[in-house]
């Protein structure tokens, strides 16, 4: 029997507001343990949370970007469990009345677009971190992260293949980065994903028993864990066995999932509305204000790039993958008006350099103005395209301006006719045999003769000009 996977994702996105969700402590990462804390975020007696409005606005942006309906009234609720990284013994989250519901994201896999429903987006606070002593049975608690704002994005069980899950996540990452609300980095934990997966006979409605997968720290691992889980559940079902409802941990090293806790050991979180916080009321005016602050989203930008710059869809896709690449492109085009040329240089040359170094374009040592200047040098023939690539590499390495590199290293092309003519004449004189061969019809020798001129100028001669002059001299 053939089975179909039914997958839903719960994605946590850490918002990069400057202060925490319920107090004024900094959210900056990497400070010494317990230095970004105060009585409120460490849960001392008698303190009270006050909602950071910026968090609501960031969450609203994501809700709008994923076509959700924003609730006019939403409410925070307490989710209870005991753990040393959770100082109050409960996490302030949202439960019955989330911030936003009923949205969707379109993802493209193998040229096909699938719409993945978003059940809800809600706001909540992050927990702290435990640091376990390697030698003794001892743990240390660092509460710097406690109270960092998160949004949880819960998808409908609309995902059918691991690749779709991966694309859906990439889409979420792209959106949060476009919106500037999160770094969206899975490896660093600013984007986290849990997956619910069950199987059902192909073509059948309804749902099978699901397992919940945790501990996947990259897009690749989400995909691999889901692939593994499909194999595991398929084998179970084909053997006449049954899937048990449980939470399973992905073991990246072994490439398997294993059971963490069963349904019986599942927490009873005892949610109830947090009496310390008043309901979040959001009026239309506020939504509109936030909407106006939103940047152009990837879909719209991609369309505009095709229309406005006449780019092929593929180019538009690559250039709008990140808002920084798109911004770089547009700034470059503003200074150098050949969009396709700019696109080629960014996609082929610049992104290659950046990838080699694992760098993002917003930290690129070659600013858009420098790339534009370089492209001008190529266009007006000061340097050849091939030389241009070398200059770009040099500029990337040293941060020097392209003009300066060309000047200091004497790289500008030799285009002076008189000088080139005399060189052509010398080559004809020095290689009589080859010239004779050419004149007797062995046209292949032409390339050799061009090469000799280039060698004399150490590559600086304008190849087009050399071709022209040599042709004239020989014929």
């Amino acid at each position, binding site marked *: 029997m053939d089975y179909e996977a039914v997958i839903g994702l719960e994605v946590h996105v850490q918002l990069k507001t400057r202060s925490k969700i319920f107090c004024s402590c900094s959210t900056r990462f990497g400070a010494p343990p317990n230095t970004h804390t105060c*009585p409120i975020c*460490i*849960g*001392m*007696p*008698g*303190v*009270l*949370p*006050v*909602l950071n409005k910026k968090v609501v606005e960031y969450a609203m942006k994501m809700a709008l970007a994923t076509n959700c309906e924003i609730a006019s009234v939403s409410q925070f609720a*307490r989710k*209870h469990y*005991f753990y*040393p990284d959770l*100082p*109050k*013994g*409960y996490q302030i989250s949202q439960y019955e009345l989330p911030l936003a519901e009923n949205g969707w994201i379109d993802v493209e896999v193998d040229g096909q677009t699938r719409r993945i429903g978003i059940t809800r987006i809600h706001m909540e606070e992050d927990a702290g971190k435990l640091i376990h002593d390697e030698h003794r049975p001892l743990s240390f*608690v660092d509460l710097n992260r406690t109270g960092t704002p998160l949004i949880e994005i819960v998808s409908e069980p609309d995902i059918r293949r691991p690749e779709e899950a991966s694309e859906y996540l990439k889409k979420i990452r792209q959106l949060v980065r476009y919106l500037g609300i999160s770094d969206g980095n899975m490896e660093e934990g600013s984007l986290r994903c849990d997956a619910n997966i069950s199987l059902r006979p192909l073509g059948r409605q309804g749902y099978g028993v699901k397992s919940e997968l945790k501990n996947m720290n990259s897009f690749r691992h989400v995909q691999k864990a889901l692939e593994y889980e499909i194999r595991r559940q398929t084998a179970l079902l084909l053997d006449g066995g049954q899937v048990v409802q449980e939470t399973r941990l992905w073991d990246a090293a072994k490439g398997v999932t294993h059971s963490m806790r069963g349904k019986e050991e599942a927490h*009873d979180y*005892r*949610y*109830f509305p947090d*009496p*310390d*916080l*008043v309901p979040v009321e959001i009026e239309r005016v506020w939504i509109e204000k936030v909407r106006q602050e939103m940047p152009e989203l990837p879909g719209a930008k991609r369309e505009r790039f095709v229309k406005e710059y006449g780019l092929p869809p593929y180019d538009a896709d690559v250039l709008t993958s990140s808002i920084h690449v798109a911004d770089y492109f547009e700034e470059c085009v503003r200074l150098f008006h050949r969009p396709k040329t700019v696109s080629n240089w960014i996609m082929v040359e610049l992104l290659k350099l950046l990838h080699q170094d694992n760098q993002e374009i917003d930290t690129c040592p070659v600013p858009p103005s420098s790339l534009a200047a370089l492209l001008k040098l190529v266009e007006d023939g000061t340097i050849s395209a091939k030389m241009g690539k070398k200059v770009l590499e040099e500029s990337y390495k040293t941060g020097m301006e392209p003009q300066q590199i060309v000047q200091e290293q004497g790289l500008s092309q030799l285009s002076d006719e008189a000088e080139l003519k005399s060189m052509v004449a010398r080559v004809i004189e020095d290689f009589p045999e080859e010239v004779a061969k050419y004149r007797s019809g062995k046209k292949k020798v032409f390339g050799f003769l061009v090469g000799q001129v280039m060698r004399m100028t150490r590559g600086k001669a304008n190849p087009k000009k050399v071709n022209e002059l040599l042709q004239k001299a020989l014929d």
Partner: protein
Amino acid sequence: MANLVDLTISSLRQLLDQREVSAVEVTRAYLERIEKVDSKIKAYLTVTGDQAMEAARAADEHMASGETAPLTGIPLGIKDVICTKGVPTTCASRMLEGFIPPYNATLMERLNGQHAVILGKLNMDEFAMGSSTENSAFFPTHNPWDLKRIPGGSSGGSAASVAARTCAGSFGSDTGGSIRQPASHCGVVGIKPTYGRVSRFGLIAFASSLDQIGPIARDVTDCAILLEAASGYDPKDSTSVNKQVPSYIGSLKEGLKGLRIGVPEEYFIPGMDPEVEEAIRNGVSTLKEQGAEIIDINLPHTEFAVATYYIIAPAEASSNLSRYDGVKYGFRAEGYRDLLEMYTRTRSAGFGPEVKRRIMVGTYCLSAGYYDAYYKKASKVRTLITRDFQDAFARCDCIAAPVAPTPAFELGEKKDDPLQMYLSDIFTIPVNLAGIPSISVPCGISKEGLPIGMQLMAGHFQEETIFKVAYNLELTLGKIGDWPEI
């Protein structure tokens, strides 16, 4: 001159303002009084003598330079549920023994801003759970009118110290009657303000949607002075209300003409102490003589209030008390082998029986499968009770009722009978569920010499009405008796 500690805050204010006495002298008198009688009353958990004297000197300096606020130089006591920076704040629990908050409650900031003098921290039922102060993990407090009896609770220390003249006024907290019931039992005046009137920041939470800080004082005027100082919007408390604080003192002396006072049928129940009923009926007649119109009203959902309260309050408490896990501050048990054992041992040894009982009840009420039947249902009944009051206040300006069904009972009398104990809050609980303000003002004394208080309630933010009626009652009835010798 009369003994300094027998004076009201308003009298002290005059003496201080006229330089007849200094804050240092007043404070010293109170510290001596505490030294002399508190061993019998046991109202204080912590006496901050040195800080008090220092604050008194600062108050004198401020008064000398003409910066005098209503509470400058006035010695006050604070219930140990309110966080005081640098001073132990225990909630009368082993769990917080030795806990010294690095922050002040907003109330303390306000009092410090007026250069009030803080004498110390007052005893209470552990985590404000109880009606007798017998649930203090450290020792019970005694009623100054009869040392064999309880002072009421949970703000028993706050009420007893005011009656014993070991502070000029105090602050307590009221979740289901914890200010009004002890005020009634100790023959003093205590008000639970409208929910949101006084900031809860720094008030250690019992049941967040019900808790409210309020003052306890010798008379209505003092009570109004203290509430005015405590009230106001606080951006640190999302549930505090941004609404101008009126002059409570200014409204006291208006007459009762044209005022309608409702008497709810449901608050006069069989089994109620006849002396209490008589005192209340007598008080109501007095108000009528003063020009108020008395009407009979109904609050039909009153009978469900106790049940509703004992779901909502423990549910919130079970959540609020989760933070006491031994990880960060306060008590941690020893001899545990793993994390779970650290939690269970710490919480088993750190909390007293009443606190544990409520945590268990609350946890149960919020559990999957029970939430709808208990917490959700209770929330709905709460709305009905609130509506009862709204309907009533469409017909009257103020409601007069008893505070407690009996005068103060004896220590140990109900300690082992939680249900009987819960019923002593039967008349005070509905007010907290509705979030309205209510005062307890003395209106009589039993044959055994025990004070009886009358409860006066009004609509949201109608504290002025309450003070006006209470003031008139106090003025007309006169003192219910001399302050007890101790």
